[in-house]
């Protein structure tokens, strides 16, 4: 025994001592298969554990003090609000075709309260694809030459100046309103806003100015708010369009209001401003009624997965639940609520937690299975909307200017009773009053609480420190596998060479062959680069396709696919055909290609996780297994074992799922059934992505699609 020990020690002696960290690295690389299996499982498991790990929200900023003051909104204000609702729903007010009458009514009501009123005309700007405008700050927009008098919207803006304030900051209250076909809900939301507004003209505690924006939503809620914000933040002093707009008869008609009003100085047709916006609330009332109780939905996701400060959501949630007795909702994926596998998973977690708790009473991490299912559904929708990068409401426009904003949608338990209407006005109004009062208390801007978080329920959140773990687990195996593949490819070719040639021959050609071999990966890197270049071209193509007039989504999509294939073929032929030449030289070429692909995917995912975490997370869920499993089908067929067969099946399935259009198709199918999905949907979806400057579009075009192509090319590699 001792002898053998000594022998082994003497064997080791000539070798230089390897540092432990390097040893650990080598160990991980050599066991990359096990490591990657463990890591991926852990990543997916961690993702499913997130609802369990979610913490309760708390109000981080002490200055907010929500609910510490008793609400001042009285029945007097409610009846004021009711008066406005009645006037607006009055059929007489809708006689005018452009809905100017109702704007006048609103403006008159604001004036009567002593607020400063102005109208803001805007021309709806179509969102267009600007290939190089991703991530750039919102510009003041192009002036459109060809608009007609009929296509403009009017925002009515009322401003209350805080009596003691210095006017440096302002709180914005937005109510979208379509004067042409307003439902009762919109009128009701105006009523709530008006009752709050009428209260705020009288209070003495106001420190920030209040801006009430009645956004004309006939061209979309977002467009109206965005147009107003554009004018507020980046006004154009030299505008050629205004003289034309003045010529439109309706506009002049609108400004006749000035004559009617007695306190004329409060009204002006020029744009009015208050200070820096501290936060914004968008208030909506849904027409469609809720069956059980009055609920309020919070929408917070802005473009590219940006979220408002968590404190804002906390304040709304706290006031709604604990003060006004409203049920608070955040968006859920409803289809997940009934899934049985999720329920059983929840039950497993619950029973595990029970066991753990019985072992050690301080381990209290379990949540009931139903709660788990709801949490997962909320988390999934939170991830989905953040990943999409498209704002979920008009509040998204504020986020572009670093203003914290959320949309509150009240869905009342509907009845035609007048008592009910007063009740909803009172409770909604008191909620808004409380939120405004809390924000008004703020000395600093929102900064205390989280900006990076996922919601699992209105009162529970997962912070960035926790949800990063799942993602880190998912992408951790990528560099290891890449390294191990690289090492494998090098060493295997080394071995094969060693076998074929005599030992004496090695010595002189060794240096040279090593030098060549060590640079062999450049070939694969070239291929990967070409495919990524192609990805960039593909993501630019829609800009040109969208210039084609009268194109249905389906045909556009077809053109896009055709052009993409064409460009891939041309690129392939122009820049040599690396696949072919690689095949000739090395049989292990695919391993190198896979290694480089995996590294590029790692870089892409890492970058994306900084820009939009949710996109990276979903992308990683799709791409990491595909990248790791990819192996030429030929090899698997040749091997013929059960394991290789399984891998082949997995590869084929993943190869289908990870193709972006297929992924979308599946997602759509899961959400609303496969019946109404069609090919044009993808085009529309992509169109919406680039219209909102979503980074997800870039991710799909420049990371996911090339990765998919490379994986497919590996699958069909002829070795």
């Amino acid at each position, binding site marked *: 025994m001792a002898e053998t020990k000594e022998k082994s020690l003497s064997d080791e002696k000539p070798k230089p001592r390897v540092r432990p960290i390097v040893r650990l690295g080598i160990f991980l690389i050599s066991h990359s298969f096990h490591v990657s299996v463990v890591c991926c499982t852990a990543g997916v498991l961690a993702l499913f554990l997130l609802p369990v790990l979610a913490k309760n929200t708390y109000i981080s900023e002490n200055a907010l003090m929500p609910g510490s003051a008793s609400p001042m909104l009285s029945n007097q204000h409610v009846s004021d609000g009711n008066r406005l609702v009645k006037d607006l729903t009055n059929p007489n007010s809708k006689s005018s075709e452009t809905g100017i009458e109702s704007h006048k009514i609103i403006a008159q009501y604001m004036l009567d309260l002593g607020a400063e009123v102005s109208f803001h005309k805007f021309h709806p700007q179509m969102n267009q694809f600007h290939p190089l405008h991703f991530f750039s*700050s919102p510009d003041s927009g192009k002036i459109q030459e060809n608009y007609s008098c009929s296509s403009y919207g009017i925002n009515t803006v009322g401003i209350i100046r805080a*009596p*003691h*304030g210095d006017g*440096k900051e302002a709180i914005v209250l937005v109510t979208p309103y379509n004067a042409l076909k307003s439902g009762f809900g919109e009128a009701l939301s105006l009523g709530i806003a008006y009752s709050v507004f009428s209260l705020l003209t009288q209070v003495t505690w106001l420190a920030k100015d209040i801006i009430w924006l009645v956004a004309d939503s006939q061209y979309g809620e977002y467009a109206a708010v965005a147009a107003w914000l554009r004018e507020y933040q*980046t*006004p154009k*002093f030299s505008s050629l369009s205004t003289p034309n707009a003045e010529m439109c008869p309706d506009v002049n008609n609108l400004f006749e209001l000035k004559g009617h009003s007695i306190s004329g100085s409060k009204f002006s047709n020029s744009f009015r401003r208050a200070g820096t916006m501290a936060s914004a609330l968008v208030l909506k009332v849904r027409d469609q009624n809720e069956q059980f109780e009055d609920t309020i939905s919070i929408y917070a996701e802005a473009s590219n997965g940006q979220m408002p400060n968590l404190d804002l959501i906390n304040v709304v949630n706290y006031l709604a639940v604990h003060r006004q007795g409203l049920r608070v909702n955040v968006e859920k994926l409803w289809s997940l609520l009934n899934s049985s596998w999720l329920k059983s998973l929840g039950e497993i977690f619950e029973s595990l937690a029970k*066991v753990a708790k019985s072992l050690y009473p301080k381990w209290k991490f379990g949540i009931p299975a139903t709660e788990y299912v709801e949490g997962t559904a909320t988390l999934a929708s939170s991830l989905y909307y953040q990943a999409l990068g498209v704002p979920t409401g008009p509040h998204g426009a504020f986020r572009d200017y670093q203003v914290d904003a959320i949309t509150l949608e009240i869905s009342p338990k509907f009845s035609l009773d007048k008592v009910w209407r007063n009740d909803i006005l009172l409770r909604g109004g008191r909620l808004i009053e409380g939120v405004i009062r809390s924000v008004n208390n703020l*000395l600093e801007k929102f900064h205390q609480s989280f900006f990076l978080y996922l919601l699992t329920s209105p009162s529970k959140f997962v912070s960035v420190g926790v949800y990063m773990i799942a993602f880190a687990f998912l992408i951790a195996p990528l560099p290891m596998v890449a390294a191990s593949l690289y090492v494998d490819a090098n060493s295997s070719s080394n071995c094969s060479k060693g076998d074929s040639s005599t030992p004496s021959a090695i010595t002189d050609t060794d240096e040279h062959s090593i030098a060549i071999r060590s640079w062999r990966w450049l070939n694969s890197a070239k291929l990967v680069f070409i495919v990524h270049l192609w990805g960039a071209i593909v993501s630019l193509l829609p800009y040109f396709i969208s210039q084609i007039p009268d194109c249905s989504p389906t045909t556009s999509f077809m053109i896009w696919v055709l052009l993409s294939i064409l460009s891939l073929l041309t690129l392939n032929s122009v820049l040599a055909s690396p696949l072919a030449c690689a095949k000739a030289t090395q049989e292990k070429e695919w391993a190198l290609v896979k290694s480089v692909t995996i590294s590029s995917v790692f870089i892409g995912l890492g970058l994306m996780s900084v820009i939009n975490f949710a996109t990276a997370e979903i992308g990683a869920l799709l791409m990491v297994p595909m990248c790791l499993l990819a192996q030429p089908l030929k090899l698997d067929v040749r091997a013929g074992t059960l394991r290789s067969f399984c891998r082949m099946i997995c590869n084929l399935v993943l190869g289908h799922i990870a193709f972006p259009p297929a992924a979308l198709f599946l997602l759509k199918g899961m959400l609303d059934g496969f019946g109404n999905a069609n090919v044009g949907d993808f085009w529309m979806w992509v169109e919406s992505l680039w219209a909102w400057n979503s980074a997800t579009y870039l991710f799909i075009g420049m990371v996911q699609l090339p990765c998919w192509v490379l994986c497919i090319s590996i699958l069909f590699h002829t070795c």
Partner: protein
Amino acid sequence: MVLLQRPHILLLLIDTHQFLQCWIAFGSANEEGQQQEEFSEELLVKPLPDHKLLAHFHFQSSAPPSTSNGCHHHLFPKAISQLVQKFRVKEMELSFTQGRWNYESWGGFDPISSSNAKPPGVELWAVFDVPQHHIDASWKNLTHTLSGLFCASINFLESTATYSTPEWSFPPASGNVRYGTFPCEAVCTENLTPWLRLLPCRDKAGIALLLDRPSLYRGFYHSQRLHLTSTESSSEGIDSGIILEQTLTVVLQPNSERAIEVHASEKHVQPSWSLSSIFGKQVSGRCVLAKSSSVYLLLDWGLVAELKFPNKENGKSAANGLTSENFWSNPSFELSVNPDRIFLEESSSHSKSLSILYMFQVEKYSESEPFDIGLMWKVPVAWLCQQTPLHASRFFMGSGNERGAIAISLKSTQFTEGFMSANSKDGSCELRVDVFQVVPWYVKVYFHSLRVFVDQQPRAVSDFIEKIHVSPSKDKMSPGVMEVVLKLPCRVNTAALTIEFDKGFLRIDEYPPDANQGFDIPSAIISFPNFHASMVFLEDDSLNRSPLLSKFQEKCPVMSYTEVLLVPLTTPDFSMPYNVSTIKCTVFALYFGSLLNVLQRRVAEEERFLKAKAAKKTGRLPLLLSKLSAKLRGRRREPLHSPPSSSSFINSKLVLKVILVAGLAVGWQYFFS
């Protein structure tokens, strides 16, 4: 000897000169009895168009240019006179303001608004009578003194990065001006009390009795101002006569409780008020030390035009004949007290109508019969105050933490259009606008990016800017100052100036405690030197004494302040120093740990030790460890089978035992808890 003697002679000369002066002054004071220290208290009340009420308190004390009493005074506050003497202050103005002056509805073209509408927070400017190189030192001392005197953080204006030296655009144009503002100062009663202490009767008697703190601070605008001028600026500085003018301007809402209840139909009726209902107090006689004590009620000419006095034509005669009751028994309003005098504005630049001033003498009233005027409105009236020629507003453009732009937009207030055309000379009517803007250093303004837009057209800067003076900011040293003289055509509708800036970075210790609020950019001053706000009232000799009315007669240029802006700068994570030190400590620990490790290690010794250990019979745990390390090394020991087989057997046994015990424990816990 001669050299030594000369100073003596000089001193003697000075001494005699002083003595003579004193003597003369004393004599003159004795002779005329006029040059006594004087104090007068006045209150002006003016209804505003938006149902509010302006109350303007005006206290003036003056010390004659004499030192008859050495450095002692009868009435004049000693603190102020000492301050003037010590720092050679020629002229100084300090204002504390809360709220904003609403230029649109409260007007900007009358003496009250153009001299009493101030930017929020503290504003201080001073003119010194000292050599150029001493000015900064004097300013610093002055700020500290005032800060102590008024319980305010005026001392922050001491640092060179906060105050500026206006060259010519600031009204008291002279090289010795220093100007500083501190917009985020919260003004409250602690600033008012020291201000009141400067009055001879404080707030114990006279008109100052009305200054009830809760009702004052409930108002919409509150500005307390202290303006002093030393009339005679002799080189010694001792003999100067000082005039101290203390004003307090408040805008209040009369009986706001009722305003809630009234409905839209009644809302146009101006609320009726009385002094006791606004301030909750009454005046019970004058301050006995005051030379004059009077209350004025001013009806704006716009309001007078609306009221349609029955005999407008012979208004002047009515003003002379005090008995004419036409002016206070008007069908549209009623005064509760008959005024002692009525003044009509003598001549106004606007021909439409003339302002009316009612005067009430407080002397007549006493404790038993307190003075209280009230105004009852009978019919709704609406009128507009006269505004500045151009309404100025300032705002930020752009978003993000990197850069932005400041825009000053000027909008014509059609109101004064006719007036302007009247002012035009030989067809080429021009409107001069002075803009004075101070920008803190962390807002790095690019002066070359100044752009001018007139009537929504981009125009060449040289076309409209007649004169410009720029002093760029120095980091942490001095703010950027921009003074511009614009010559705009009279018919201009809108004009805008934009200037771009980059946001600077501050060091972590330069951030204030509430850094996330953002940083203030002080108000810009927009003045119209061609326009003068003055009110001249028909007067007889006795009126000459009223300091308030003589103040109204002075021609002061129309001035308005823009809003204070809040620029959000990038703020670091303030827990960062903590994190950095933690990381630093970790790195150090790692570094020194490995260094020590390397230093300590003796390779030969280690090998010997390992051999000795191998010679010994190895225990179970070391075997386990060695196996694990072998595993870590990449299974290089794989061929050695015989010993591990036994050890693995032992190991698995051990593991089994451990698992069994743990399982038992878990089961025990599970079933019996």
